């Protein structure tokens, strides 16, 4: 489905974030990229979706080279991105978000098509908020809308950047079920996650990403999830140091500083 060869990409020319990263995603499955903050997960997803231009390497989707295509073309090729940071359109209502987004690919290239009702079944929290503007939503509701919008494109390749961030456990579970069901419709899903537990429970293959490089695929069914996690942890940081590290801890048990009692109202002009 998706093949990435020696991809090099960065935000400024001199310091690439991904360095010769390669990865192969078999079709019709859920795949996860896990890695610590700053590993480059978001960068990878944005590059596939066309928001960043790689300086070297190739991205091949179903045999077509899509390296460096524009986001518009990427969407029309069947790639949808549910970005991190909920990039919604603040002045549009929830309903508008879902109404203006529609599948842009030819019928036979589409993944599962979601009607408005189906999406509201998936996210009942949004049903009562259809007339609200995006900036009036709670954090979790925004996250739901981001994913609903991506699903609405009926993509062949769905890129989800930390999809469950800020979601309550029940909502997260619903998303998990929905994503797990997508491969049946011929959709390939790529999720970027910082934690391992969601990935190991859901994904068919897991890639570990550290400082701009992507590990070969690991199969959580075969590989022991614990081993995977440990490998992941081992790759990320040294053992967290024990004992109090806070400078505040020095003052622990003492009374609060008295100099910052209520300031006089004069200060606040």
């Amino acid at each position, binding site marked *: 489905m998706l093949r990435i060869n020696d991809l090099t990409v960065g*935000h400024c020319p001199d310091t690439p974030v991904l360095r010769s990263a390669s990865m192969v995603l078999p079709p019709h499955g859920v795949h996860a990229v896990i890695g610590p903050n700053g590993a480059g997960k978001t960068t990878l997803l944005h590059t596939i979706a066309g928001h960043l231009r790689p300086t070297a390497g190739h991205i091949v989707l179903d045999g077509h080279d899509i390296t460096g295509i524009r986001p518009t073309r990427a969407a029309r090729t069947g790639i949808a991105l549910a970005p*991190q940071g909920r990039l919604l359109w603040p002045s549009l209502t929830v309903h508008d978000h879902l109404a203006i987004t529609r599948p842009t690919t030819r019928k036979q290239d589409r993944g599962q098509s979601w009607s408005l009702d189906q999406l509201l079944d998936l996210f009942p929290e949004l049903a009562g908020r259809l007339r609200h503007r*995006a900036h009036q939503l709670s954090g979790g509701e925004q996250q739901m809308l981001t994913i609903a919008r991506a699903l609405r494109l009926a993509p062949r390749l769905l890129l989800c950047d930390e999809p469950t961030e800020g979601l309550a456990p029940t909502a997260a579970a619903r998303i998990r079920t929905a994503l797990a069901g997508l491969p049946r419709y011929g959709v390939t899903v790529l999720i970027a996650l910082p934690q391992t537990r969601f990935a190991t429970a859901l994904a068919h293959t897991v890639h570990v990403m550290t400082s701009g490089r992507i590990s070969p695929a690991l199969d959580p069914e075969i590989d022991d999830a614990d081993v995977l996690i440990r490998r992941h942890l081992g790759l990320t940081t040294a053992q967290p140091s024990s004992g109090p590290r806070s400078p505040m801890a020095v003052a622990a048990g003492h009374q609060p500083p008295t100099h910052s009692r209520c300031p006089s109202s004069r200060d606040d*002009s």
Partner: protein
Amino acid sequence: MSVDTLTDLAAGRILRLQRRARPWAGPSLVAVAVAAVAATPDGYLHATVARMLPLALLAVSVAAVTGHAGLPTLGQVAPYAAGAYTTAHLALTGVTLAPAQLLVAAVAGAATAGLLGALLVRYRGTVVLMLSLAAAELTAITAGQWRTVTGGTDGLAGIPAAHLLPGTPALTADRPLLLYAATITVTATTAAACLLRRWQSLLTAVRDNESRAAASGHPTTGYLWITHTGAGALAGIAGALLIHTHRWITPADVGFGTAALALLAVVIGGPRCLPGAATAAVLVLTVRDVAAAPWPGHAPLLLGGLFVAAVYLLPDGLAALPAHLTTVAARRARPAARHTTPPPADRSPA
């Protein structure tokens, strides 16, 4: 030697100069320029440059509000008008001492801007722009209507010249007037730039994320109000300077047209660069009043051309011009790096 290499050399030279003498490069460059102008025997040149400085100082004040406080404003003409008409009346009633006039004008400007700011700083973006447009229009209308004070729509003329100190000759000769106006402009700009540099990180914080700044205990609107009021004092001084260099005033001088020129000069000058704004104001007036003289009637055309050219050639303003040249030079030296579109995550949220 090819033109390309020459440009490269120049860019490199500028960069090196910039690196070595950055803090005083600006003021000293201006000082040299003013001295060069003053050294010429050409009275017309002196007078012409001197007349541009009030608008330059007004642009500095607008830059402080627009660039640093993040409130795009056309309303600084209100304190400008307050300073100018106050100075005019002081002069007409016999107080011709320049320092006294400057002081009173600064106070009048600050007071006007303080009142106006109390309304403006509660708003952001386009609303501020339109409210300040209303302020500019109201200023000009009042200046036209309040005939006893402002002389009506034809304004005031023949205002007595100022004296630098008691007993010194009146500031009428072109060269002393230029030196005086340049000194005031450069001093005021430098002082404002230094003050703003000290508080720059605070103002950036307020602009970037107001609720975060407030949650860290910063009275954000208070900071904006202080900046607005301080800039008002600067505009008041600019108003006094207008009277000193022109010795007449009409409502059109404190209306929308002046406000728009000052704001556009700020855009050309570069965000948050006070000397850039002043330079751009001088540039704009040079194009309108000097460069366009051989083609009478086509000054707007030239001015329009300047604006369009500035948008494309100076994307980050005059302030970034040296750095811009350097990158051009650097790009010549190395093969061009591929441009990358910024990722959406780069944007600030709604």
